[in-house]
């Protein structure tokens, strides 16, 4: 007789091992596909992850089989008008899946590419593969500067506000039992003697004395008081703020702004993956600096000269006002075409090195020069800054944005 078995509760993920093997094998292809997508996709698409197409030929499993050509016949169904000897043109293409069907190749792979759906997390994980935030581990584990109060049992000393009534009374009860038990034992014996021998004055006096002693044990003593104990434990900071600084003077054209946007977006995506909360501050500057919203930052035209120092000063003010005391991971990203005049570059450098960099996790300067060969005044000044968490780079094409970001972090990680 047949046996019917319910297997529904069995392990449902029998293919997990095979899927993992597939992922491992094609990790390189997927990374490459993701990198290609980064070059092609618009920024708003970037965050949604999605599907990777791997060309079928890359993952095909070859075997000895017939190709097109030679003589063959194939039988098909549904004839309604053909007569023997009729001639018809060869279907174009490989003859696969065509209506007339010449090759009779059944069940061949007709898809050009193999679609593999990556979750958003998997997509970003590949996208940011082996990019590590500088100092991140240190920040999370060792050098954390945010603290939280946490309970840590009870102590015998403290402020009245922390008094634990329950604990104190419990201790008092224990003390009273401990101190009184010997007296009570004596009293019991005495009572027995009185019951046996009758009440005489000596015994009576003794009983009074013992009762007196019992009464003298205090209900609550200084010794009994217990206070709730709390300790400060270090808490990793999971907040970050990212400052976007951009020169919006006339020499920054749309193309350069687009490059800047890509850079900022990538950095933002990266931070938003690492931190629970990432705030953005946009500072644009010409000869003076303003804090603006994102729309204005990228699209509102403004003309004027160039004073980099103004932007850095504004950044410093904002940090002092809104992100004080090392409770935030502060990141800075600056984009400029490198034009700066007079003492401005040197002053900026000094401000950056002395005031800002000690407070920052990371600061990146991206230059979008008209002529890649020329060393701009700003770059000249900045390139003399020696700090592990400061990096500069020059970018002229969209496709360079991603590698640059990668390079920045890699250099930082090695430092």
């Amino acid at each position: 007789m047949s046996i019917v078995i319910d297997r529904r509760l069995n392990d449902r993920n029998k293919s997990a091992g095979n899927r993992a093997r597939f992922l491992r094998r094609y990790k390189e292809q997927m990374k490459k596909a993701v990198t290609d997508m980064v070059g092609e996709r618009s920024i708003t698409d970037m965050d949604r992850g999605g599907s990777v197409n791997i060309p079928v030929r890359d993952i095909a499993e070859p075997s000895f089989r017939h190709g097109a050509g030679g003589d063959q016949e194939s039988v098909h169904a549904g004839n309604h008008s053909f007569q023997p000897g009729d001639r018809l043109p060869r279907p174009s293409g490989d003859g696969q899946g065509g209506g007339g069907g010449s090759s009779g190749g059944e069940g061949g792979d007709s898809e050009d590419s193999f679609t593999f759906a990556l979750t958003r997390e998997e997509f970003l994980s590949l996208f940011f593969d082996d990019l590590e935030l500088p100092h991140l581990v240190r920040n999370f584990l060792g050098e954390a500067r945010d603290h939280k109060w946490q309970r840590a049992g009870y102590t015998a000393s403290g402020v009245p506000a922390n008094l634990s009534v329950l604990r104190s009374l419990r201790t008092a009860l224990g003390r009273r039992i401990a101190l009184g038990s010997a007296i009570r034992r004596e009293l019991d014996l005495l009572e027995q003697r009185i019951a046996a021998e009758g009440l005489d004055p000596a015994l009576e006096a003794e009983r009074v004395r013992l009762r007196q002693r019992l009464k003298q044990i205090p209900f609550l003593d200084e010794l009994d008081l217990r206070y709730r104990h709390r300790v400060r434990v270090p808490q990793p900071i999971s907040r970050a703020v990212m400052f976007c600084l951009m020169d919006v003077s006339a020499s920054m054209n749309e193309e350069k702004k687009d490059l800047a946007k890509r850079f900022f977006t990538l950095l933002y995506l990266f931070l938003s993956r690492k931190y629970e909360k990432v705030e953005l501050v946009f500072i644009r500057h010409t000869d003076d600096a303003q804090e603006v919203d994102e729309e204005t930052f990228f699209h509102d035209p403004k003309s004027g000269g160039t004073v980099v120092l103004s932007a850095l000063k504004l950044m410093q003010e904002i940090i002092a006002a809104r992100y004080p005391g090392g409770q935030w991971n502060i990141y800075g990203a600056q984009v400029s075409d490198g034009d700066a005049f007079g003492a401005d570059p040197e002053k900026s450098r000094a401000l950056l090195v002395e005031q800002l960099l000690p407070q920052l996790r990371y600061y990146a300067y991206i230059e979008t020069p008209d002529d890649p060969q020329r060393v701009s005044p700003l770059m000249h000044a900045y390139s003399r800054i020696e700090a592990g968490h400061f990096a500069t780079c020059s970018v002229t094409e969209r496709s360079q944005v991603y590698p640059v970001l990668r390079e920045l972090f890699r250099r930082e990680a090695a430092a």
Partner: protein
Amino acid sequence: MNSILVTETPATLPGAAGNGPADGNTPQLPLALSGGGRLLSTGSEWTFELLGRYDEAIHAIAANEFGLDTYPNQIEVIASEQMLDAYASVGLPISYPHWSYGKEFIRNEHLYRKGARGLAYEIVINSNPCISYLMEENSMPMQALVIAHACYGHNSFFKGNYLFRQWTNADAIVDYMVFARRYVLDCEEHHGHAAVEEVLDSCHALMSHGVDRYRHPTPLSVEEERDRQRDREEHAWQRYDEIWKTVPRKRPAERRRGESPFPEEPQENLLYFIEKHAPKLEPWQRELVRITRKLAQYFYPQGQTKVMNEGWATFWHYTLLNRLYDHRLVDSGFMLEVLQSHTNVITQRGYDQRGYGGLNPYALGFAMMSDIRRICEQPTEEDRHWFPDIAGGDWRKVLDFAMRNYKDESFIGQFLSPRLMREFHLFAVADQASDSQLRIDSIHNEDGYRRLRRLLAAQYNRDNQVPDIQVLRYERRGDRSLTLRHRQHRGRPLHGETGEVMKHLSRLWGFAVRLETVDAQDRPVGETLSLGA
């Protein structure tokens, strides 16, 4: 939609008036059903108890009325995710791990989630006991259909058909796969994922040429298999003797004399040849070659009996469930749902319709099985002329005989009737290299029947699908190179990816490999593909 079969089938409904008595023997009600007239269930919900009762009822009809001989059944109810898992391991309940199964899983999962493809209602495994997977999403009528289809249709085919009897061992396959899985996992642990993957990749590439067509494999249980593997390793180890390396070699000229080429006859089983003779393989690598070879052999009959197997199973679910209805064990709502699914399964689209993917094996197989029954029961003049042996005979005996002794190619060559060719509107297209256009070779008319049938049969001949590539020479005393010969079939060249396969071959072989191509008269064609090691 081309619904030839659908409109035609009511005439052959087993329950239709006049069919029962025409058999010559009145169907006897099986014991379990003698209560008669009581519905097994109503509605679409299934329970385990109901599954058991339906199975019992179907079994009673299959065994007592129609004499189907089956392995015991093991029916397993699974969820859709588990069905996806089962797909990925090519329908085996257990398999060794490999990325290609992961690929298959991801592909199916993607299509399924997108809604581009539904899941099969069942998967059935050629094993003893015969394991069938039922999806929990199926309704009761669907479960009954699947039980009839898989547990009695496919099951009896696995047990009866000569190819399966000869080439697969239903008792041992699950045990063997347990061994294989454990062995591959062990190898991964010892030699690393990459090394194991390389060997398996290469073996998979040659799997279509890892099949013996003329020898009988011996059944082995998991313990015996492991013992034999240990023995093989030990034997190789014992025979190894460092001292032989010091024996002075003969001069090449002396050696050549009187030396016969090896192998004496060309060998068609590449994987077997590699397993036995590849000069550089480690023992564990040889074992992996052997595992894939066994797997290829296991699947060998399935590819050659697709039409028959599905046709047989479809014919029987149709017949068995109609008997249930005749016995008033199910109501017409049940039958309507069954018939709807049945009709979907046996749809054959025309070549110019959307979704045409060649001949539907279910449609062709079912039509042929039903047609054989019709020829036996209600032969026409034409049938008497074409099938004098079976026209008017006992359809059960004829069908049983056909099921046991044929494969797709011979089955079609023997039993495809002119009537079916007309119903399917079959036509053959000739594609010749010398002609710039395609030519209609023959159609379903008086002149075309025989040729059409021959061409269709040839289409299911494995030799037409798989190129004829054999081991020609192994230079054992020379440079240890391996030469394969491809004999072209009617001028058909090999696919462009052949170079890739040769790389895999060269990886397994370890020395130079060559592939030469000859035509039917053994004259060389084109260039010899060679890969040095």
